[in-house]
């Protein structure tokens, strides 16, 4: 493709002009946290395949104060993602069973599903303490 699309000049801080734009940028920033945390989890899986000592090293890294701060920030950004994702889901993909399902029903089902999955993961993990 040999084309040079016209790029309309924009001030670099265009998103500071309206609250909605600022919120959009904060929400989009969550992807950076999720990317880094995804890489962290990949590293964890890798260390798990490298044996007990490597796994213990990765767990120790998770307990580093800076990592705990990062986990807190990532959790906050992830919850922002989760809430906005559920809020927009019925508008992006309207659901229909014979007639249109109200947006609030779809949202309630999704939040309920997230609560069940979260409880199941934490419950299954906590069983390891018994």
């Amino acid at each position: 493709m040999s084309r040079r699309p016209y790029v309309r000049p924009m001030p670099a801080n265009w998103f500071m002009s309206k609250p909605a734009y600022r919120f959009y940028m904060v929400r989009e920033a969550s992807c950076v946290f999720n990317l880094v945390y995804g890489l962290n989890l990949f590293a964890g899986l890798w260390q798990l395949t490298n044996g007990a000592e490597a796994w213990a090293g990765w767990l120790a890294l998770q307990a580093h104060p800076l990592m705990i701060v990062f986990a807190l920030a990532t959790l906050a950004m992830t919850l922002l993602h989760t809430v906005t994702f559920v809020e927009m889901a019925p508008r992006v993909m309207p659901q229909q069973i014979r007639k249109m399902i109200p947006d609030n029903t779809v949202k309630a089902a999704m939040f309920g599903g997230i609560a069940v999955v979260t409880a199941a993961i934490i419950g299954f993990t906590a069983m390891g303490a018994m």
Partner: protein
Amino acid sequence: MSMTQAKSARHIEPLLWSLFGAGGMAIAFLMPAVILIVGLLVPMGILPAEVLSYERLSAFFLESWFGRLCAFVIIVPALWGSIHRVYHGMHDLQIHAGTGIKVFCYGSVLVLTIATVALVL
């Protein structure tokens, strides 16, 4: 759009967009619990360290098929969804990345996807 473009071969964008959708879903449903346990509850001692012991997690994620599937679903869609948003977010920050950056972004995640499968198998 010119005729040649309209007729040109299949585009990869719908595939990348589906992976982005899957990533948004996986992050929304799974990441809150994963980050809570791995990043906060165990490091802060609220849950005992045994819940993430090597014996337990290696048996689950590396030896059971359900566990392998869980490892894949937790890690891989999240990476595709995030890199898609990082790549397109650069545009919002006035960084107009070219094909090289695009190939690097998605290519890296493709490598990590294959590596994840290789690690659990």
